[in-house]
């Protein structure tokens, strides 16, 4: 993106500053064949088949997040954002273990996170008009690192998904609603 300085004011705009993510939808990067944009926002996904977006309904205990932390290796180096989401599912079951074993083997995933403030951010994808389909994957693959935890009797057993990749740009947003995502 070309250099530009945009005037910002969190006071004047009274931004909705609630943190955290409420729910997410996940698919493989290879399941997406094309994206369309409206004013820089993803307004359409084209998928390799139907029913490929899977809903992630995790614990509503304010532990889920999606953070994009920018860093430069040195002052002249390009910005690289480490994009990390964390999803926790309480309990432990055979279904959780099967899901974790399958998720760990995915080479590159994409998630739509619905933030508690209503914004919808797409992790694992980079808008690139020069690519077939208008997008590419992240600089380093976005992968799921699951953990299956019994913890102790004083605590909660749980499945945790840590999903991480890096990119030169921050994640795009999407205007697709939950029902539109699930209709695909």
């Amino acid at each position, binding site marked *: 993106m070309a250099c530009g300085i945009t005037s910002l004011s969190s006071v004047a705009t009274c931004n909705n500053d609630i943190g955290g993510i409420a729910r997410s939808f996940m698919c493989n990067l290879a399941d997406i*064949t*094309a994206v*369309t*944009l*409206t004013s820089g926002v993803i*307004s*359409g*996904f*084209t*998928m*390799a*088949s*139907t*029913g490929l977006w*899977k*809903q992630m*309904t995790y614990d509503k205990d304010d532990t889920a997040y999606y953070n994009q932390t920018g860093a430069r290796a040195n002052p002249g180096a390009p910005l690289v954002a480490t994009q990390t989401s964390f999803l926790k599912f309480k309990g432990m079951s055979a*279904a959780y273990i099967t899901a974790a074993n399958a998720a760990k083997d995915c080479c590159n995933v994409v998630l739509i996170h619905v933030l508690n403030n209503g914004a919808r951010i797409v992790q694992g994808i980079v808008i690139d008009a020069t690519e*077939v*389909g*208008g997008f590419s994957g992240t600089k380093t693959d976005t992968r799921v690192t699951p953990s299956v935890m019994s913890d102790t009797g004083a605590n909660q057993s749980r499945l945790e998904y840590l999903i991480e990749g890096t990119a030169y740009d921050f994640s795009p947003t999407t205007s*697709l*609603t939950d*029902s*539109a995502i699930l*209709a*695909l």
Partner: protein
Amino acid sequence: MYIVPQEILEQYPELVTLNEANKPVNLAGKRIEKQMPGDANNAPKVRVVEAANQKDLEFLFKKGHPFIVEVADTNTTSVSTKEVK
């Protein structure tokens, strides 16, 4: 008329997206009926995706869909050829 080029369809025999009414349509020109097993969030069901029509393709073309191209109507061309003969 609007089409998806054959080389794209060979790579992706199904191409599901949303039309102007936010209904899923298949750009590969055929109806899809797929049995979806139930999961933690949804009961099992049959998903049906209708084939996209010209109106759908036109909407997506105008929205900048990278796979859809506008070509001369082959039916019109055929009629013109007959008229010349």
